[in-house]
């Protein structure tokens, strides 16, 4: 009797103590559900728990985040927004305009984010001057992957211009190798397209076309040349590419059926999972042309009630950009840390190349957002462009028609 009374008193004491110092709580909506990615997020959850927080996991995969965005809209409209959401690119600002994002400037300023993040990436994390999202990583999109043995046995070096690429591809085709492994899904078509566009239009032209949506650039002769090159690329793809998952295309490069693939650095994860070594079994290089197309994953905090959830948001934001998580997460995921002061000793050669290129391109102004992965434009505009790109690639549409449709589709997307 005495003992239980004592227990009751101490329980009450505990409850009141926790009411004073709110225990951080976070429900996190994300679409990293597969093995490697999930393990990466689990690192964050572990750090969160070590700091006294309670993490509730709300994973929704599918369509590169489409399904998660569907769930997010329903949650926001029902007045039951998740604490933190995996969001990226201009979508962050779009949600901010709907008045549902929380301000995390206090954390960002205390942690000095402005000093450790490249300026153009930091720009994506700000809404009207205040910080509203925390970056996790930097994926590079304009990679070209190759099977080392296939290149060697055909006497081909990694191409540095699109003409070289075309010449190499013709040589490979003549030797009976599929030059380009590709999956015919709209987002993959767009991924190849933007790599080609960066090479042909140059960094400035790319920015004009796919960030500013400058009509003169969209209808320029250079853009016609981009579509011409896409038509050429179509000839380097095998007949059965439609609908193929990107990782099956990667497998084709791995087993020597195909020579090249143009894909973001998540493809590296597939090579690594199959026990391949970068530089020996497979090669990585940036696609022909200068510049760096980035795809930055980030988390935005939504406006929620309750001290415990607000504490959770602050803790989460702090941990996400913290150096230890940035290192461990990106080692798992194949990307590189968003903050530039993390030691890269543990990273592989492709990641080191990526980090060096990011540094260089950040300095010369060619660090650019990927349009294909929702970093450059809002959904309606990037979607309109992708419609034209994929329609052109999968039919016999002429480049001139494609350019005309491009301008029209962009105009019709508002």
């Amino acid at each position: 009797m005495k003992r239980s009374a004592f227990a009751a008193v101490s329980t009450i004491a505990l409850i009141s103590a926790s009411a004073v110092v709110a225990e951080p709580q976070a429900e996190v909506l994300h679409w990293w559900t597969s093995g490697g990615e999930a393990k990466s997020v689990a690192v964050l959850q572990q750090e969160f728990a070590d700091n006294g927080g309670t993490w509730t996991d709300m994973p929704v995969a599918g369509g590169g985040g489409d399904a998660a965005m569907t769930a997010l809209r329903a949650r926001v409209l029902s007045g039951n927004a998740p604490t933190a959401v995996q969001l990226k690119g201009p979508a962050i600002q779009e949600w901010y305009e709907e008045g549902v994002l929380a301000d995390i400037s206090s954390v960002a300023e205390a942690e000095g984010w402005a000093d450790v993040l490249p300026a153009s990436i930091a720009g994506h994390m700000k809404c009207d001057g205040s910080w509203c999202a925390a970056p996790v990583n930097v994926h590079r999109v304009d990679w070209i992957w190759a099977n080392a043995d296939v290149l060697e046995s055909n006497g081909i070096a990694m191409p540095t211009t699109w003409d070289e690429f075309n010449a190499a591809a013709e040589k490979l085709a003549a030797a009976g190798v599929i030059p380009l492994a590709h999956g015919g899904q709209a987002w993959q078509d767009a991924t190849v397209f933007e790599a080609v566009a960066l090479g042909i239009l140059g960094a400035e032209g790319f920015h004009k076309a796919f960030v500013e949506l400058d009509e003169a650039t969209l209808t320029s002769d250079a853009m016609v040349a981009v579509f011409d090159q896409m038509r050429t690329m179509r000839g380097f793809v095998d007949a059965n590419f439609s609908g193929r998952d990107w990782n099956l295309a990667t497998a084709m490069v791995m087993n020597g059926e195909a020579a090249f693939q143009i894909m973001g650095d998540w493809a590296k994860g597939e090579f690594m999972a199959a026990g391949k070594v970068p530089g020996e079994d497979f090669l990585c290089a940036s696609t022909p042309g200068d510049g760096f197309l980035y795809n930055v994953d980030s988390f935005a905090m939504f406006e929620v009630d309750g001290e415990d959830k607000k504490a959770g948001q602050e803790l989460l934001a702090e941990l996400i950009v913290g150096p230890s998580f940035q290192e461990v997460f990106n080692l798992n995921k194949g990307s590189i840390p968003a903050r530039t002061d993390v030691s890269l000793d543990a990273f592989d050669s492709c990641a080191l190349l990526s980090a060096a290129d990011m540094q260089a391109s950040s300095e010369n102004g060619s660090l650019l957002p990927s349009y294909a992965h929702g970093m450059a434009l809002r959904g309606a505009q990037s979607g309109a462009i992708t419609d034209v790109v994929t329609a052109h690639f999968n039919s016999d549409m002429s480049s001139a028609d494609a350019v005309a449709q491009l301008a029209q589709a962009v105009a019709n997307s508002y």
Partner: protein
Amino acid sequence: MADLAHSTPRSQSNLGRIALRWLLYILLAVFALYYLMPLFVMVTTSLKSLDEIRTGSLVALPREVTFDAWKTAWSGACTGIQCEGLQPYFWNSVLLAVPAVMISTLIGALNGYVIAQWRFKGANLIFSLMLFGCFIPFQVVLLPMARLLGMMGLAGTIPGLIFVHVIYGIGFTTLFFRNYYVTIPSELVKAAKVDGANFFRIFWSIFLPLSLPIIVVTVIWQFTQIWNDFLFGVSFSQAGTQPVTVALNNIVNSTTGVKEYNVDMAAAIIAALPTLLVYVVAGKYFIRGLTAGSVKG
């Protein structure tokens, strides 16, 4: 019953009849192959190792049979940071589907009973309004429904999901029961009324006992719809209440991770087991229930 193959002895020779019979069985077998093909691909893939899938043909028999993928799908696959497989989500789906099917079947039975047997002015109009409701694309209702669920305090809960499924099940369940009850002579109700039985008593002791076949049809239909639903499940759930289809989607549809097709296929079959079981066990009653009148106009 149309019993034609056996009952026209004089019109065909014996040999011709046997040939016809063979042709019939061959045709049936060919179609069975068509229906079984995807299942074959799914089952064989689920029994292969990932290495074999990477290197071999996707539509070949496994060289070495392994059940690892099944084990992983049930209790080890990552659906987020938890790697507990489909197991925990399975239970959510049961908690959601069982009450939702029961409630919507009961509502359908009562509605069908009223519309078929207690006709009043406007009943047919109400019925057609309900039927038209079957056709509304669910993508349309997501956002306003989310708003209303929030207002009712049901957002993200299993009762909320049950509510949504019951609402959008009304059309079909009412259709099934109404078409079944409309074949029962109205004299039955009149006679019962003369005997002093009231509305509910007639339903309870006359109509319900007659309804087993159509209950089976309705339960099969609703169970399939609700168990396989993804759109409502993903939109109106939150952490802890997600149904099995959402977990399945999380395993299968991650975009930038390494794809484990064997686990995907095993997970898909596991997630479909309850519905498959319902079809196999209740299939006979399904045809019987439909025969008993549900499909007659």
